């Protein structure tokens, strides 16, 4: 059974805004799935449709095997929205307890799980301070604690490391990995592509309301990419003596042999890694090219 499944999901807002244009997506249980896309691509709308904060125009979607909007299922889902605003008059602990109560948890469960999650996100020292006195990063951690308080089967996180310092990011990443080990599926929206690449089992690139590519970061990267540089004139029709090419190991060996046979001094030869950022930017440029 999948954690999230959508088929042909569409959302049209008033004013002719077509935010989702037939989104097809599958997120498996126990995996961390990353969604990337530029501002306005429809990522937040997709999340809101899944959690019934926004109503879909057409298409189907299920959460944990149930149609979206099935209330008992929502009790098994954790959520942290982008730019969330928790009540500033509550302390960190009160906030986590408040959202736990809204999830229908018993008093004993609430208190036990709240303290546990506050400890996991490293906020025990400030749990009794008002949220109004927290930094952005501290608020983000408390937000993360409330999203995991009900031991959810699925957690949807929209920019969870927004405003968090590098050390905090690493800690949050560790929390996510720990939750995955417990079998929780995590759906992650983030602009930080390197972060997604590090932590996600699979990613999808969303552009202009639809999913353009999805798969594991390795799948998306495709064939290996190499860089070869040597001194002297370019060989075999190349225009530069420092160039990048795609191919397997044999192909790379062939390029290297050609340079050596021609008495060129090789100054650089290495397998280049294709980052998610490269892929993403290439996809965005393609889309912009198509549109123009």
């Amino acid at each position, binding site marked *: 059974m999948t954690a999230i499944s959508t088929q042909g999901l569409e959302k049209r807002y008033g004013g002719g805004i077509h935010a989702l244009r037939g989104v097809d997506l599958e997120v498996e249980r126990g995996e961390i799935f990353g969604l990337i896309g530029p501002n306005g691509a429809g990522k937040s709308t997709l999340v809101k449709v899944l959690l019934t904060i926004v109503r879909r125009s057409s298409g189907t979607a299920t959460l944990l095997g149930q149609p979206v909007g099935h209330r008992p299922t929502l009790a098994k889902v954790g959520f*942290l929205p982008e*730019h*969330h*605003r928790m009540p500033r008059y509550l302390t960190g602990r009160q906030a986590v307890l408040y959202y736990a109560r809204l999830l229908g948890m018993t008093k004993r469960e609430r208190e036990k799980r709240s303290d546990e999650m506050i400890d996991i996100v490293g906020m025990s020292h400030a749990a009794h301070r008002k949220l109004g006195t927290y930094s952005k990063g501290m608020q983000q951690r408390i937000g993360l604690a409330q999203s995991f308080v009900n031991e959810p089967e699925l957690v949807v996180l929209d920019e969870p490391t927004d405003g968090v310092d590098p050390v905090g990011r690493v800690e949050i990443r560790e929390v996510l990995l720990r939750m995955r080990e417990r079998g929780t599926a995590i759906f992650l929206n983030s602009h930080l592509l390197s972060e997604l690449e590090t932590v996600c089992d699979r990613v999808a690139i969303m552009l202009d309301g639809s999913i353009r590519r999805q798969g594991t970061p390795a799948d998306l990267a495709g064939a290996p990419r190499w860089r070869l540089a040597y001194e002297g004139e370019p060989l075999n029709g190349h225009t530069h003596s420092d160039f990048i090419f795609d191919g397997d190991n044999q192909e790379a060996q062939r390029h290297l042999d050609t340079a050596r046979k021609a008495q060129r001094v090789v100054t650089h030869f290495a397998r280049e890694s294709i980052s998610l950022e490269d892929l993403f930017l290439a996809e965005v440029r393609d889309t912009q090219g198509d549109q123009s």
Partner: protein
Amino acid sequence: MSLLIAMFIDTWRELTSRFLFWIVLAISAFIVLMLSSVGFDETGISLWWGISHSDHELLRRGTRNLEVVYRAFFSDVLVGFWLTYAATFLGLISTASVFPDFLSGGGVDMLLAKPRRRASIFIAKFLASLLFAAVPVTLVCLGVLISMRMALGIWEFEILYALPYVLLFYSSLFAVCVLVGTVTRSALASLLLTVVIWGLFLAASAVESTAGFAYDQIQQDIERVQNGDDSPRKRRRRGRPPPPVAEADLDEFDRDNLDSESEELIAESSPDSVFDRAARLESLEEFAANAAFTEKVASWVRWPLPKGIEIIDLMRERITPEDDPNFFIAFGMTMSGQPIELAETVGSLADQVTDNILNARKVRQSDAYVLGTTALFQLITLGLAIGWFSRRDY
């Protein structure tokens, strides 16, 4: 139930984080404290918890004046003015932002993603927000109840009627505030529009009452004209005590030396005066018809609106016996040494003179009508707000 409890706890924390809430609570507590500092014994009144004492014939334990003044102070000043108008206005200022904040992006998202019906979330938040009014009213009611027991030795449990009536009054205005806040998501817009709409309610009520009052007066005038009881002489006479001596014999008057009253008497018996009376009657009837029409239109307009003034009148009727004068009359009488037993005659006369014109005509409508139409207005207003909240994308 857990949703309601969560909302009550959350809203209580929210209210206690607001400065105005504490201001209202502090003023209410101060008033109750001041009231409790006044004590009475068999000889008179003591102030500042017995520090100062003065003998008084009427303001002492066991007198009716004391009970009436105390009760009227509660219903007319503490509830009728402070809790109903001043504290309600401060309450609206303080709570106008509750729903716009509640619906702000990032805040409402987290609530809507929880396994709760949107309507349940909304209703729970609305009920919890009424704490702003409920807490000061409860404080005042209980404070006065205890103060009265201490000062007069009696338990006046009727005082507790103020709680549901003031809450109904406040919630009907707050429902408007919530509807506007839900649609516009602006605290300023919801406050301003609520105050404007409150003003319109009062204006409609004033028009209805004034037209009704005018109609009553004209009917009395018509009756007098029909009975031939409207001559300037008689009209003047109604306003003064009868002359100490018998009226002059008309047969023996000196025509060259008539006083003005005698001239009027002669004029009234002429054929012209009969014509004048008919014309006056026609004019009055036309005026009465216009007043009746205005009252009817105002009454139709008011039918679906909350009946704020009438609710407070109903509360006063529950708390104070019908023949009790209002606080200012009772206090004035007591200070001038008049026992309140005279209230039935003096009070009714004084009411006509001093009561606000809006209160002069008692609305001839049942409790069920006043409370029912107000509750219906609130239900419809809230229904619209819930409908908007439930269907909207956030």
